[in-house]
C-alpha cells in the first residue's frame, strides 16, 4: 500500500502517486491487456474466462503454465477455438463458440458445473464489465435501459463463486466517463467481488478501502487520477 496510490471512491486519497510505475508508453490494446491478465494468473490455476475479450487471455498463457480452463457449460481442460474439421456442434464454450478438448478433460452437467463455481473451486475468473466500483462491486449484465432485454447467464455465479474475480475493460466509456466508479449506477452483478481491474490505462487492486493503483500505461498516475476526477 505504501508505494501505491489509494484512490478512495476512485477519486482521491492519501496518495503516493509518484511511486506508481508507468509500465507502457501508451494505452494498451485488448491483446496487451489480455497478456497482462495472463501474467498474473498463477501456474496451475483453474480459470474461467468470460465471453468476449476475456477469452483472449487464453492465448497469452505460457504453454507450461498448467492453467486449466473451465467453461461453465460443463467442461474442464478446454482447448483453443476449433478450426476447420475440429468444429463439433456438441463442443462449445460459454459463448457458443466451437472449441477443442485437451488431454485430461472432463465433462459434467450444469448443476455440477455451477456447484464447482459457487463452491469456490475456481481460482480465478476474468470478466468484462460495464462498471466496477472502487470497492469491487461489479455491474456487467444489464444496462438498465428501459428497452434493453436483460440477460445474466453465469455472470452472477462467477462473480459470487470464483476465489478471485479479475475484470478487464476499457477504463473510459465512449462518452469519456470513467467505468471505475465510486458506486455502480448500472444494476449490480455482485457486491465487493472484483479484486483486480485491468484496463487500457492502468491496473487497480480493489477492496474495502478503495482502488489502489498498481501501474499505469501511457500516462502518469497523477494525470490519470486527475482525469478520473473529472470523469
Amino acid at each position, binding site marked *: 500500500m505504501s508505494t501505491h496510490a489509494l484512490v478512495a471512491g476512485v477519486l482521491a486519497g492519501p496518495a503516493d502517486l509518484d511511486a506508481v510505475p508507468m509500465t507502457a508508453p501508451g494505452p494498451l490494446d485488448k491483446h496487451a491487456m489480455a497478456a497482462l491478465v495472463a501474467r498474473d494468473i498463477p501456474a496451475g490455476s483453474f480459470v474461467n474466462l468470460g465471453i468476449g475479450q476475456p477469452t483472449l487471455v487464453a492465448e497469452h498463457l505460457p504453454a507450461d503454465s498448467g492453467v486449466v480452463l473451465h467453461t461453465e457449460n460443463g467442461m474442464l481442460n478446454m482447448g483453443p477455438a476449433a478450426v476447420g474439421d475440429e468444429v463439433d456442434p456438441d463442443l462449445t464454450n460459454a459463448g457458443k463458440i466451437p472449441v477443442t478438448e485437451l488431454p485430461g478433460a472432463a465433462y459434467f452437467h450444469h448443476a455440477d458445473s*455451477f456447484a464447482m463455481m459457487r463452491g469456490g473451486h475456481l481460482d480465478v475468473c476474468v470478466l468484462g464489465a460495464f462498471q466496477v466500483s472502487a470497492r469491487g462491486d461489479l455491474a456487467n449484465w444489464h444496462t438498465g435501459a428501459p428497452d434493453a432485454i436483460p440477460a*445474466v447467464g453465469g455472470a452472477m455465479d462467477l462473480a459470487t463463486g470464483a476465489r478471485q474475480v479479475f475484470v478487464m475493460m476499457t477504463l473510459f466509456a465512449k462518452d469519456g466517463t470513467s467505468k471505475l466508479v465510486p458506486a455502480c449506477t448500472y444494476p449490480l452483478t455482485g457486491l465487493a467481488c472484483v479484486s483486480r481491474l485491468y484496463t487500457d490505462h492502468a491496473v487497480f487492486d480493489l477492496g474495502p478501502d478503495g482502488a489502489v493503483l498498481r501501474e499505469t500505461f501511457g500516462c502518469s498516475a497523477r494525470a490519470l487520477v486527475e482525469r478520473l476526477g473529472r470523469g
Partner: protein
Amino acid sequence: MTTLLCADPDEAVAGVRDGSTVLVGGFGMAGMPVALIDALIRQGATDLTVVSNNAGNGDTGLAALLAAGRVRKVVCSFPRQADSWVFDGLYRQGRVELELVPQGTLAERMRAAGAGIGAFYCPTGAGTPLAEGKETREIDGRSHVLEYPLRGDVALIGAYRADRMGNLVYRKTARNFGPVMATAATTVVAQVREVVDVGALDPEAVVTPGLYVDRVVEVGS
C-alpha cells in the same frame, strides 16, 4: 416405470397439456431437442411456460415454438443473443413474460426439484435486482437468497445414446442441462441419436439412469 421407446417424436410428445411447464434442454443448439420441439409445435399445446437456458436461436427449435405463439412465459438465464430475434420481438411487444434466473441458480433450482430439497439458501445474486422480493438470510457473514425448486410437467432433452431401459449418455458439452432436467419433470422425454441394446452402455459412465426417463425416441444424427 418402464421407459417407453417411441416410434417417432410425435408419439414422444403426445399428451402435453395446455398450460404445462416444459423444461427444454440445450445450451444454444448443443443438446437442443429440436425434433421434440418441432413435434410439440405439431402437437399443439399452448400457454406454455418454457424453462431453458436461452430463449431460442434463429428460427428453429425453441424460436419456432415461440414464433408459433405457444409460449406464455420464458424462464431462462440468457435470452439476449445475436440470433434471438423471435424472442426479442415478442418480448418488446409484451407478448411473452420473462423470468430471468442466474444460470447456476436455474440449474440448482431444477436439481432441488429432482432431489426433494424444499428450498435452499444461495449466495448468487444477493444484493442484486434479481434477488428483489426474495427472502434473504445472512449465513457465515454472507448474504444468501432463498430459492425454491423449479419443476416441470414435461422435460424435453437431447442425449447421445440410450439403451432400451432408458439409460442415457450425452456427448461433450451437449450434456449441459439434460441430466438435471431429467430429474425435475413429471414426464421426461429424450431424443437420442441412437438406441442401443441393454448392456451396451458402461454402467460406470451412465449419466442419466433410465429411472428418470419416461420416453425415448431415436432421431439419428
